[in-house]
């Protein structure tokens, strides 16, 4: 047994080391070495181990790569593969697109980061304004990592810690207390009033103020038993109360006041006082749904742009998935002709598998599918024979 082991080790050493050393000379006879140099160089390249990622002869993937995307990176970075599955995961990481932020060979920045850090972030986060009338200092300096983690986090928005703790990592709590003279109670929940990137108001207070907040804290915080409860919101927003009592509703979630799961009671960046972009707010609870569909080949444009409310009610609905209408009405708002011809749909058309009404969503999955037209199964045959068995 020992003899076989010895032969194996000697053979392995004989194969690996000459090839590694040869890479220095062989690969760079054609590929200019200067193109692979920089302040920070990827370790396999330093060691001349081009073969750890590339196959010199033939490969399935572009660039003669042995594997594609993160699968290649994780063949060495094993610990990261496990760590990057925990909590909220940054979209490029989920999609295995390490090269969205990193370069594979050499960079002027630590961690083989592309370009200037903030430029890397803004490359995808195009809706973020580069500058505000009042801009938070770390944001102005492009120090996204001051508050956010790049890969994953157990906290929303990939924050490094709980939001208040992130703020207190730079801001002295005593100084903050002095700046909030009439604050009712202990200072907390900074993001309820402040935009951490910037705003048009001094103190980076969010642009749109909730009317009662603009009039002072007492409007809500002096009401005794209803202070801070869902009911305190519904006193004014009566129409929302009806939705909350529907078959399915968002009368759920964390804390005594369900409204503040999505809305700030004080200030916001837009009139609905949402606690972030629509997709960010929805992802707070529905991260599984977003992750399931985001990499599908075919997606409805509204799903792709993260505009959930185009099809879903936000407070409550008597329909499945809190849709704004039944599976026909909701689609024919835009796809006018589709409700009138093509495959029969409507109350008189029954899905033979379930006895339910045939609607657009009997065949289509607008959230995302790997089949053209967001079909549930392949349109060439598989979809039709679900019901039309004889064909």
């Amino acid at each position: 047994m020992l003899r076989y082991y010895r032969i194996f080790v000697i053979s392995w050493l004989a194969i690996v080391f000459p090839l590694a050393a040869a890479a220095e000379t062989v690969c760079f006879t054609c590929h200019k070495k200067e193109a692979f140099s920089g302040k920070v160089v990827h370790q396999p390249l330093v060691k001349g181990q081009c073969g750890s990622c590339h196959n010199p002869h033939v490969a399935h993937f572009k660039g003669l790569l042995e594997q594609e995307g993160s699968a290649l990176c994780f063949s060495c970075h094993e610990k990261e593969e496990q760590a990057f599955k925990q909590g909220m995961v940054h979209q490029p990481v989920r999609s295995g697109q390490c090269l969205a932020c990193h370069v594979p060979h050499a960079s002027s920045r630590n961690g083989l980061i592309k370009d200037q850090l903030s430029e890397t972030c803004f490359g995808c986060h195009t809706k973020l304004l580069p500058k505000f009338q009042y801009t938070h200092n770390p944001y102005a300096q492009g120090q996204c990592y001051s508050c956010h983690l790049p890969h994953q986090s157990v906290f929303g928005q990939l924050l490094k810690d709980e939001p208040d703790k992130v703020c207190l990592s730079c801001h002295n709590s005593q100084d903050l207390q002095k700046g909030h003279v009439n604050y009712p109670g202990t200072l907390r929940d900074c993001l309820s009033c402040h935009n951490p990137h910037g705003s048009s108001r001094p103190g980076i207070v969010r642009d749109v103020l909730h009317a009662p907040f603009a009039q002072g804290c007492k409007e809500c915080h002096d009401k005794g038993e209803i202070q801070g409860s869902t009911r305190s919101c519904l006193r004014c927003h009566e129409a929302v109360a009806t939705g909350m009592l529907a078959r399915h509703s968002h009368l759920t979630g964390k804390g005594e006041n369900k409204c503040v799961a999505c809305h700030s009671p004080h200030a916001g960046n837009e009139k609905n006082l949402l606690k972030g972009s629509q997709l960010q707010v929805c992802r707070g609870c529905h991260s599984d749904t977003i992750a399931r569909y985001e990499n599908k080949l075919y997606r409805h444009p509204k799903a792709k742009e993260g505009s959930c409310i185009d099809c879903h009610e936000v407070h409550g609905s008597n329909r499945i998935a809190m849709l704004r209408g039944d599976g026909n009405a909701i689609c024919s708002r835009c796809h006018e002709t589709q409700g009138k011809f093509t495959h029969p749909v409507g109350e008189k058309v029954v899905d033979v598998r379930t006895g339910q009404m045939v609607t657009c969503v009997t065949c289509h999955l607008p959230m995302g599918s790997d089949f053209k037209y967001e079909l549930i199964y392949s349109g060439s045959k598989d979809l039709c024979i679900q019901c039309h068995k004889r064909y």
Partner: protein
Amino acid sequence: MRYVKNMLSQSALLAVSIFMVATTSLAAEPWAWKATLDGAGSGQAIVMPTALYVDAERQRYYVVDSGGNRLLSFSREGTFLLAFTAEGKLQIPYDMVRESADVIWVVERGRNSLTSINIKAKEVVTHIIKDGERVLVPDRLDYKNGIFYVLDKESGQIALLGSDLALQKWLACPECTSGFVDFKLTNAGIWALDQLDKKVVQFDAEGKLIKQFDVGQQVEFPVSLAIGPADNVYVLDRHAADIDVFDPQGNFKYSFLAKGWSRGELYFPIEIVFDPWGGLCVVEEGNGRVEVFGR
């Protein structure tokens, strides 16, 4: 000789491996479709059923047809018996229990009421449940030994109400940041499911917290739970459309079922219930039916 010995030991290893793989795959799919409770017998499809109540004494299934504003009864064999509408008075029924031969209680979403219906007297009485000034939003409902167990959707806590509907006690998860979406009563106490924290919590009969465990590694969007005959915990995943099974200590055992529209597949499932005859019943809101699985 050594070669033969090696070959024999390798063959034995291979045989054991095949046996292990075979038994594992058998264990992974131990449930088979047995019956479907749907609206065919009533002449009208069930629309968005939300709950199933099993009456062990009368050997009946009752399906809450939330979209059709009906309660449908089926025999133990799955034969349709009767559709009950309380003379058209039900408004989005969501869950139900049978207190006695004549009286049933229904959670009505449309009226935010815990409604009592005396079938014999044809009397329908709505009850708005309150804790002081706060109006509860009844969601899941069960009844045992003169106590109503009502899940309050707003607080995510379970309210224990006496037969006069007076609040006796609240059951909450002290370490959960979210609230319960379902609970089940067993002889050993009460099991509850926290949706956003993806946590299963067990209370004893007195309401004292006994244990809790996370199911988040396996479950994406838990919506209902049921406790099996061996005290295994079955968690229904609405979005993944499957059922994940855990032992009483919270160790994951296996998953079964998958998304689909055909027999034995799930689409927007909303509740799971064990019947007293060994069946595991899954209420499918999306497919408008209840499927009963047996071993």
